[in-house]
């Protein structure tokens, strides 16, 4: 079942959690809501579930307006961050709860419930633990019980709030793989909240990046990593270097480095910012031939050996800006540099954003530019 979020605004006493959010989640997809804490992602999830009411806007399930429908009638499967398992019930009763609280008319028979619970226990690989209590299970097992409990009522889709947040790394890896497998098997629409970009990238078909109550970008992991819509998305998805400069005569100048652009209005002069991933920084001992326009000199301040990769802290000689470079250990050995060495640095794959205020366009305040040589 598809989910449509239209113009949702939600505010609490002192702050606005969501501002005019629009989102479409197609049927059968595994979608991640990614953002830092306080970005409104959990609020959005709770609004979709019906655990919160928006001030404005509407929520549609498969085209049908559900905005004013009670949470009990929405038939969503919700898995809470800390699972919210019923402590005084054993695993069987926890999973059976949603079925056994139905009114007599719609309640399945005892045998049917038992059958259903056991098939779910099998699905979540917890057969034989039916009579344990939540306190007797590990974190990963509790997580799976919470999933089974949500699935028991045959929800239209699954909503998971930080599903792996409380687990240690190894269990988290396993559960991610398992959730992916489950999604493939059930074909259910799954929406989950996470602040871990790696988790979102690894698991989701579509990632919704959120910040300060707004959706910043929606796209496949590939899209948002390689074509981030704005500086926030760029810097949220990994380590990043920042270079400040200006746009002049249709060219971007970041210190001594120069980039051609397809910028139409040559008369405009404005500040520009270049974003660059550390692993795109190319280091050489001699000036590179040909494309010297994008090459500058830098001094190595510090070298960190991080196992398979090596990270260098560098300082540009032209602008004194500090930045990072990452390379394989092998490349580092080939270079044979040490701290205080002066090297040539070529800036590849720089995403440049021009401050749009002088251009009098509205949000986002920085517009992306495709830089070329």
């Amino acid at each position, binding site marked *: 079942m598809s989910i449509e979020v239209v113009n949702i605004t939600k505010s*609490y006493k002192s*702050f606005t*959690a969501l501002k005019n959010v629009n989102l479409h989640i197609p049927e059968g997809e595994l979608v991640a809501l990614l953002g830092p*804490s*306080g970005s409104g992602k959990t*609020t959005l999830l709770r609004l979709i579930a*019906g*655990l*919160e*009411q928006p001030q404005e806007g509407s929520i549609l399930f498969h085209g049908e307006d559900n905005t004013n429908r*009670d*949470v*009990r009638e929405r038939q969503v499967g919700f898995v809470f961050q800390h699972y919210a398992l019923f402590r005084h019930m054993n695993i069987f009763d926890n999973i059976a709860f949603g079925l056994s609280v139905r009114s007599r008319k719609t309640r399945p028979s005892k045998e049917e419930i038992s059958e259903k619970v056991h098939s779910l226990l099998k699905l979540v690989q917890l057969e034989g633990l039916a009579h344990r209590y939540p306190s007797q299970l590990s974190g990963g097992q509790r997580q799976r019980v919470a999933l089974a409990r949500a699935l028991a009522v045959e929800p239209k889709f699954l909503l998971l709030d930080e599903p792996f947040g409380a687990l240690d790394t190894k269990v988290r890896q396993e559960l991610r793989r398992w959730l992916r497998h489950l999604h493939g098997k059930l074909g259910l629409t799954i929406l989950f909240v996470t602040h871990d970009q790696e988790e979102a990238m690894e698991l989701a078909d579509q990632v919704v990046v959120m910040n300060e109550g707004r959706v910043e970008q929606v796209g496949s992991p590939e899209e948002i990593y390689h074509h981030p819509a704005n500086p926030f998305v760029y810097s949220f998805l990994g380590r990043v270097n920042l270079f400040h400069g200006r746009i002049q005569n249709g060219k971007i100048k970041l210190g001594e480095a120069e980039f051609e652009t397809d910028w139409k209005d040559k008369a405009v002069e404005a500040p520009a910012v270049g974003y660059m991933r550390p692993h795109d920084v190319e280091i050489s001992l001699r000036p590179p031939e040909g494309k010297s326009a994008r090459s500058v000199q830098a001094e190595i301040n510090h070298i960190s050996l991080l196992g398979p990769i090596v990270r260098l802290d560098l300082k540009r000689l032209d602008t004194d800006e500090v930045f990072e470079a990452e390379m394989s250990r092998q490349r580092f050995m080939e270079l044979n540099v040490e701290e205080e060495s002066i090297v040539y640095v070529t800036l590849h794959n720089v995403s440049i954003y021009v401050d749009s205020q002088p251009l009098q366009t509205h949000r986002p305040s920085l517009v992306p530019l495709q830089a070329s040589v």
Partner: protein
Amino acid sequence: MRHLTEPAYIRWTLIIVALLFLGLFLILPLVAVFTEAFRQGAEVFVASITEEETLSAVKLTLLVAAISVPLNVTFGIAAAWAIAKFSFPGKNVLLTLIDLPFAVSPVIAGLIFVLLFGSQGVAAPLLAAWDLQIIFAVPGIMLATTFVTFPFVARELIPVMEAQGRDEEEAAVSLGASGWKTFLRVTLPNVKWGLLYGVILCNARAMGEFGAVSVVSGHIRGMTNTLPLHVEILYNEYQFAAAFAVATLLAALALVTLILKSLIEWKTERQAKLDEEQHYDVTGERAG
């Protein structure tokens, strides 16, 4: 949120039923005490509480509280220090033993002192030799009151001191403070509200105790009568207005106790909230 609460009509029904219950069982008796006290007019009221026997009962009640409360405060502090700041085998047994007087009926509390110090009691020959009287005298009233109020201060202090941990005390000692200085300057400021709370409850019970005191006092007017016993005597003599007039003194004590108690709770709650907010500032986390 509507899924976390009930429809308004259920909400208000529940509130009204709860308030009716409390009104019937708590507020009505309280109102009755004051109404009955003034039934025969203000003069009778004033005369009753300024009567010589009432005044001597007030004096005795204050004296008993002035002895038994400090005794139990000293014990409470010592016990809380030993139990909260150290670990030793049998701690739970000790805690249960401290609770014992709560489980003992006040009448039995009086009885055990009669069995011990009464005319046929275990210690009777000893007392006779020294010409001491405990039962049907003021010392017996003090003993029984101290027994009944025994756990109050310790019970309030132990959890508070346990929650404080012992890091701060260890820091103070490592900086060269003596045990006594550490207690006065580090522990006491941290637990002062808990201590006061215990003292207030202990005092209320000490002044109001009836059953245990009734057994050991002998009801000698003007001699071994505390305020609650005086109320009983007046009531049994059908001097209702006078009985209720004296009772207003005790009811006023109860109200003052409740107000102080609420103030302390409010204060500690606010402190806890402030601590929490500070914690948020440090970690930079935000709710919601």
